[in-house]
């Protein structure tokens, strides 16, 4: 009987620095599985953000560049324009992508750059110690919103996938979650589709993943999953928002 489960070739055999209950490890594995399945490891270049995933390159076995805070989409644009044959993805968190890097992500998406973005939305700045992010939920307590996010003062959380889907340039835009096994399987499917669009040279692809951050939320991993389900998912609905064909696949819309 052959092996039925093994570590993807694209994933390094090492211990990560991520906290217990963190979902980055799950997302890393999904990326690695997709890259293995598409057979593109030898022509893939990943771009690490600034944030918890700044060291993501330690956990993959293909070429990687490290960006400045928020600038990964500009770097991906540079690579993809001079080497359209490479498979390029940015791996970004919500502080990196939705705050300091909002300009770069919107314009890269609007130009229809043929790379893929994995956007990890855990409603908080992780690496710097749990500060408020543009995606932080109303009344959510963080180290810079100790009384809870006051939406009268700092506005509502930004729905980035919806923002990008509103652009007129064709793209694949999807939001999934990595908090239950069922979610994770759907996230994998969405991620694979995103990379397939890139391999075909078809369009820009954006995969938002609702994730948990037990450490900075001050919750156990199990409670963090419940909080994400009860608080984040009603505000951040899952499913395809846009495909280059013009509408979500049947049954995939939210």
């Amino acid at each position: 009987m052959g092996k039925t489960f093994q570590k993807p070739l694209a994933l390094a055999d090492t211990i990560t620095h991520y906290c217990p209950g963190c979902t980055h490890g799950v997302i890393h594995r999904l990326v690695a599985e997709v890259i293995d399945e598409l057979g593109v490891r030898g022509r893939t270049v990943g771009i690490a953000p600034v944030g918890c995933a700044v060291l993501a390159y330690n956990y993959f076995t293909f070429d990687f560049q490290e960006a400045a805070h928020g600038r990964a989409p500009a770097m991906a644009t540079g690579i993809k324009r001079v080497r359209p044959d490479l498979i390029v993805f940015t791996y970004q968190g919500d502080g990196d992508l939705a705050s300091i890097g909002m300009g770069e992500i919107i314009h890269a998406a609007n130009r229809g750059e043929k790379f893929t973005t994995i956007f990890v939305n855990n409603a908080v700045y992780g690496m710097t110690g749990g500060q408020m992010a543009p995606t932080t939920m109303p009344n959510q307590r963080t180290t810079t919103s100790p009384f809870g996010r006051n939406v009268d003062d700092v506005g509502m959380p930004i729905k980035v996938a919806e923002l990008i889907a509103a652009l007129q340039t064709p793209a694949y835009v999807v939001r999934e979650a990595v908090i239950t096994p069922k979610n994770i399987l759907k996230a994998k499917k969405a991620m694979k589709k995103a990379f397939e669009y890139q391999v075909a040279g078809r369009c820009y692809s954006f995969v938002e993943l609702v994730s948990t951050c037990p450490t900075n939320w001050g919750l156990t991993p199990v409670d963090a999953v419940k909080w994400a389900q009860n608080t984040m998912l009603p505000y951040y609905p899952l499913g395809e928002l846009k495909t280059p064909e013009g509408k979500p696949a049947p049954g995939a819309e939210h």
Partner: protein
Amino acid sequence: MAKVLMKGNEAIGEAAIRAGCLNYFAYPITPQSEVAEYLSKRMPEVGGVFLQGESEVAVSYMIFGAAAAGARVFTTSSSPGISLMSEAISYIAGAQCPAVFVNIMRGGPGLGGILPSQADYLQATKGGGHGDYRMLVMAPASVQEAVEMVMQAFPLAEKYRNPVMILGDGLIGQMMEPVEFPDNLKTEPSNKNDWATNGMDTRGSQTRNLVKSLYLDPEVLNKHNLTLKAKYDRMKREEIRFEAHNTDGDYQALIVSYGTMSRVCRTAIDLLKDQGIEVGMIRPQTLFPYPEQAVLEAASKASCKAVASIEMNMGQMVEDIERSVRGRRPVSWFGKCGGEVPTPEEVLEVVKGLIG
């Protein structure tokens, strides 16, 4: 090749193509926008990449990404734009990637003005971005020299895997002069890109590459900075360029001036000669590394009483001259800002005042 009459900014764009750089990302800003306008037409003709980014910040990271992927790449901007790009320049230097930045300087600080200036001398030579990095800075005095320096900049950037800056005042970009594109400066990329993140298949390698500037271990970061310093020290040994003018015989004063300003100074030196006053000049062609020894030797000539820094700024090069002259001669400054260019007559009067 025959001489053609070209505007500096267009000649700079053409020079990059002739040097084998077919990748250009840029954002419009006066007085260098003609480079982007020219290359938006020219790059498609030669099968190259032209992209207008959404900001100087984004453009500078497109440069970083493309350079890290092993491509020969450059951008052009002007002073406020270069301030925005300086963050990426620091990252590119830290990550040891080759890239060429052209700064067609305008007046500052802030929005300043759009007319020619040399007000970014300190930014270009002493930092601009954060951290311990330097970049090779070349200052052309004519459209022809701008063409040659742009063509030389790419192999130099690749030799050191470091950003190189062409620091031209606005006049270099805006004036039209006859230029000839030298064939002998055409160069193939000089390294094998075995460090680049261009995909393992491209290199035929099983080992992946990382391009990064983060070193959390202090010992490792210190070692990394020593590696960078060794490159900057090597630039000081191998890349200093300058031109000496009227320094063979005796002279009563020495002018140090670069870029378009040095051409005004040459006229002033001719006018002074007509009056029986000899004045020498050192024109640094590289501002980093700085021609310290040349300035020291020229200033130390027994007949030379004083040294003057003549610049289109408020005296940003004075410190480098003083450092070079080591107190052996008085160093003074004359200059103007914001698009005002000192006239030969004004330079003449300043120099006469120095020698009494």
